[in-house]
Structure formats: structure tokens, C-alpha cells
């Protein structure tokens, strides 16, 4: 059979998430131009993201650091209501059945936040709390400057080895619920070794939302310290 038209093979050679990455790149430039540091918080459900954010945002306010948060969940605005109690601007992103945030959703909520009077240019920190899920969010760039992966001491020291792609895509690893470490015989050296195996060179920050341990160190890292 002879072909009369063009070829039947069409070369694309493009990233599947090219569109997301374009939106994310525009967001990153917007954050940079506004002088705000954006961080994308990824972890399993129940690792203590919201509790740590509450503590961090309260501490930020004490230190005169202006912070706002966009928090994502499949349903409810419980997290936004908890964080709003810190007095900072907070918006809930309800993702429905979607298991992760995409750059377009962040862009839409940043627009809505600015329309409501909270300008990026007036912020030091924008905290993007992703849907609790240790797999899917790792594929999606949200335009953040810092990706934070949280791991609670009750989850097991080998979790970085089980979810290597997520830890490998992080900039900072945060240990949460440090006040419970004794109760579960948590081995911090083992977790640091696991992080070094799949995410070599990433700083590991040990925290406790209950005692406030590590919160200042994390705040400094988010503000553009050594990350």
C-alpha cells in the first residue's frame, strides 16, 4: 500500500505535563517578582501538616513575617477554618475527587486571593498545603520555590524508601510529631539514612507542633535560608 498523504507517524516529543509546567513557570515568575516565597507541602494524610502550619503561621505572625495559606482537601473546609484562627489569610481549595493540586488550581486561587485584597506583594510566605497523598502530588509542579515533604515519627523510618519519587522531588524533609518519638521508639538516624539514600543532600528538620521545636528553623528555611 502506498501512502499518498503525509507520514502516519507524528513525532510529539513533549512532556505530558507541559501545560501544567507552563502555568507553574508563570506562577514561579509571579512569586519571584512579588518577593513572596511559595512552598508546596506534601505528605500522607494525618502526618500533621495542618497542625504544623498552625504553629508555623502563629510563629510567623510573632516574628512579623506575613504569611498566607492555600489548603487543599478532597472535601470540607475544616483545615482552612483551623488555619484562619491564626489571623492569616487562608483559602480552602476543595479538589473533589482529585488526589493532588495542579498549577491551574493554584493560579485560580491566587487570583481569587488577590481579588479579595491579599496581594502577593504584601506577603513574605505563601504556604500551599497539598492534598494528603504521598504519591500523586509529586508529579505536579505548582510554581513553588520550596517543596516540603513531611513525615511523622509514627509512620515508620523506611517511608522515604517506599515513596522514593516523592522524597527525591523534595527540597526539605520535615519530621513531625517529634514529641511522640519516645512513645514509638522512633529512630531518627535510620530516617536520616533513608532520606540520604533516596534524596541525598536534602536537609532534615525535626519538628513538633505541640512543643514548637524546629518551627523557627523551618521558618528560616522557607524564607530562603539554606535549602
Amino acid at each position, binding site marked *: 500500500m502506498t501512502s499518498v*498523504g503525509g507520514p*502516519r*507517524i507524528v513525532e510529539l516529543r513533549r512532556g*505530558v*505535563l507541559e501545560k501544567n509546567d507552563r502555568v507553574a513557570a508563570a506562577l514561579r515568575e509571579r512569586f519571584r517578582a512579588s518577593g513572596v516565597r511559595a512552598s508546596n507541602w506534601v505528605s500522607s494524610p494525618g502526618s500533621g501538616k495542618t497542625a504544623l502550619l498552625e504553629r508555623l503561621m502563629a510563629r510567623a505572625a510573632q516574628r512579623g513575617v506575613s504569611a498566607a495559606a492555600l489548603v487543599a482537601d478532597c472535601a470540607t473546609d475544616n483545615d482552612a477554618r483551623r488555619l484562619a484562627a491564626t489571623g492569616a489569610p487562608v483559602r480552602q481549595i476543595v479538589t473533589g475527587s482529585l488526589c493532588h493540586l495542579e498549577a491551574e488550581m493554584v493560579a485560580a486561587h491566587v487570583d481569587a486571593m488577590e481579588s479579595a485584597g491579599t496581594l502577593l506583594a504584601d506577603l513574605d510566605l505563601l504556604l500551599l498545603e497539598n492534598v494528603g497523598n504521598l504519591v500523586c502530588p509529586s508529579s505536579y509542579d505548582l510554581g513553588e520555590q520550596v517543596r516540603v515533604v513531611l513525615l511523622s515519627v509514627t509512620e515508620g523510618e523506611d517511608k522515604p524508601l517506599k515513596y522514593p519519587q516523592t522524597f527525591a522531588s523534595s527540597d526539605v524533609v520535615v519530621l513531625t510529631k517529634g514529641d511522640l518519638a519516645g512513645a514509638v521508639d522512633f529512630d531518627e538516624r535510620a530516617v536520616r539514612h533513608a532520606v540520604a539514600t533516596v534524596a541525598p543532600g536534602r536537609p532534615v528538620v525535626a519538628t513538633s507542633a505541640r512543643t514548637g521545636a524546629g518551627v523557627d528553623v523551618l521558618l528560616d528555611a522557607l524564607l530562603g535560608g539554606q535549602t
Partner: protein
Amino acid sequence: MHEVSIARAIVSAVVDAVGDQAVESVEVAVGALSGVAPVALEFVWDVTTSGTTLDGAALVVDRVPTTVFCRRCDRVVAPDLGFVCPTCGEISTDVRSGRELDVRRARLREPAVPRP
């Protein structure tokens, strides 16, 4: 399980490139570090493409393993665990493959019609 979102992004990338021409197959590269499970992607492919111009198109997934350059061994190696060289145990940050999540090419059912 974000593979439905990924499958939709693949459909949209192909439709952008070939318009409404019928597609026989789509070849994608999925790296071990991409966060996408090829099995799950294959599972959702038929239902995602149903009713689109990719209806009935086959999905061909090239699974790309993680490889890193080991400085001590002075060669590219495929770690069994994380970024650890399977030969000498050195941890490398010089990733050479595994992050891919690409649409490589589409094969049309009929010869391509030049697009305006």
C-alpha cells in the same frame, strides 16, 4: 491514583498535535521517578480515550528505569534502591534517567493531513 489526570493530559497533547485525525497508537515514556504507575495508566486509558478521537488507540508505554552516574565507578548504573550504586554502594545525585513523563509520538490510522 492520578493516572486519569495524566491520561487526559496525554490525550490533550496528542489532539493539540494531530487535530481530529484518528489515532492508532500513542507511545509514551514513563520514568520510574515520574510518580506515574504504568499499570494504572494502562488501566484507565480506554475509559479516558472513549468518545475522543483517540477512541480505540493503543497506548504503548516505554518504562524508563532510574539510572545515575556513579563517580566512583565512572559509569552510568541502575540502582536497585534509591540512588545507591549497586556495585560500590556510593549514593549519587547525578540522575541520568527516570524522570521522564513524555509523549513521544502518535501513529495515525490514515496518512497525515497537513495541518493549516
